[in-house]
């Protein structure tokens, strides 16, 4: 009996620890941000949001993240295709290098881009003499976002291409379809879920990215100030409510995307 009681005590201990861990580590902080941004009343929240610096930073982030995700869908689909379909020297090396942007600390990624394209470098100098501004301007932000989200689309499309039954393609060819048509009607539909899913992940990650972006972004409102950098600035200047207000816009967007991805995955599984 005694040992049974002890066993029960352990079980309850473990159960409540895990539930508490969930609540304290994840649920409370997230609710805290929402609570804080409304803590000074709804009008105050609206005021924080309607500050042009705030909403323009959100719009800018959305636009740049969309550009970065689109670039990644195009590049990622091509690279996934090449890595799955062609055998060529260096393929295993390239395949391992895909994950490097995930493994590298984001601040290191930002520093790498800064060093490569910065004012003192070869490329930066050449661009400057041509009158192009890269670092501390929008191109560098997009490049940083593309770098950080590089693996998503590739890793989403690769397994789909590997699974694609070659006989489908062969059948299409045998029936006299031309290369482009086979691609459009057989291969592209097979890759589409990965392109969309990976693209959405890349988009939400680009929205949230801070480390790589903060090193190469500027602070001109509406032109080079992205929201994560804006939030950091608000935190630094002790404006918790302003930071929280912009945060919950971004958070709600990211949660929405995450939810959409989950719904899409469940649909896909059911089919």
């Amino acid at each position, binding site marked *: 009996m005694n040992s049974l009681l002890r066993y029960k005590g352990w079980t309850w201990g473990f159960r409540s620890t895990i539930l508490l861990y969930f609540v304290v580590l994840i649920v409370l902080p997230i609710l805290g941000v929402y609570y804080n941004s409304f803590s000074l009343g709804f009008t105050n929240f609206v005021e924080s949001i309607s500050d042009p610096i705030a909403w323009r930073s959100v719009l800018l982030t959305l636009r740049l993240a969309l550009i970065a995700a689109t670039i990644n869908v195009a590049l990622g689909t091509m690279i996934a295709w*090449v890595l799955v379909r062609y055998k060529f020297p260096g393929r295993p090396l390239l395949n391992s290098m895909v994950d490097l942007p995930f*493994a590298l600390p984001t601040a290191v990624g930002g520093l*790498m881009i800064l060093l490569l394209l910065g004012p003192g470098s070869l490329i930066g100098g050449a661009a400057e003499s041509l009158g192009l501004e890269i670092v501390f301007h929008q191109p560098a932000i997009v490049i940083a976002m593309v770098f950080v989200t590089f693996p998503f689309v590739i890793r989403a499309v690769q397994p789909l291409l590997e699974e694609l039954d070659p006989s489908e393609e062969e059948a299409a060819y045998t029936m006299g379809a031309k290369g482009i048509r086979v691609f459009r009607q057989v291969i592209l539909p097979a890759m589409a879920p990965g392109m969309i899913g990976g693209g959405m992940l890349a988009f939400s990650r680009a929205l949230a990215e801070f480390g790589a972006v903060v090193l190469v972004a500027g602070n001109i409102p509406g032109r080079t100030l992205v929201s994560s950098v804006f939030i950091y600035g608000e935190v630094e200047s002790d404006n918790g409510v302003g930071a929280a207000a912009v945060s919950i816009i971004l958070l709600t967007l990211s949660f929405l995307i995450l939810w959409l991805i989950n719904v899409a995955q469940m649909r896909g599984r059911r089919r």
Partner: protein
Amino acid sequence: MRRLWIGLTYLVFFLLIAAPLGKMITGAFGKGLSGFWEALTRPEALHALMMTALVVITVTLLNTLFGIMTALYLVRAEWMGPRLKSLLNSIVDLPYAVSPVIGGLMIVLLLGPDSALGAVFEHIGFNIVYAFPGMVIATLFVTFPLMVREVMPVLQEIGGQQEEAASTLGAYGWTTFWKVTWPSIQWAVIYGVILTVARSLGEFGAVLVVSGNIMNRTQTATTLVYQDVENFNVTAAGGVALVLAAFSVGLLLLMEWSKKRKEVR
């Protein structure tokens, strides 16, 4: 056609990954080997590397422990209704969607000096924000899904029958876990550990906000890189960044290795 695509792929890899990496390596040695060595042996750099190591070790231990337990409960527990299970299951992924800066902000808002909880802790002389505990909490938040999401699919795949058989034969909870469950999940756990180490080593946004980036006290390697860049000391930043990058590449190789082992089983 084939040549064109392969060539384009090589070009993308070169421009986006190899060139920046190469530039950083040469940048770190911009003032020669001694410059690199000096950047690393500055007192603040040594302290920052030590802080990073401490955070990585603490977070990896806690996250592994809680991650395995959470995964076990989410797959096996009968005491949770299916509704609670699926709710918790979707909560696990939330940190993925949270920007690191916002993750840090959450902890500052919840436990910072201005909050109710933070005031209580401060009163008893226990600082969380702008100190080590806050940095650990922030990193735990960010790394939380990694272990759970590695272990859960394996548990689902092996099913509960073997474990049930073991406990019917009279094995106690711990024995069942070590003799039956552990051997099948161990490679997933090792993979999860590597992911956690990599992520906590590189965590920047959340830690920057929570730690306050105080030199020689709460500064980690990544936040030191940031500060060096802000101070236009790019060579020093490159030195520290190179050490971080070397660790990451090492972890990436380990990841490939353990992925292969995981697949073999």
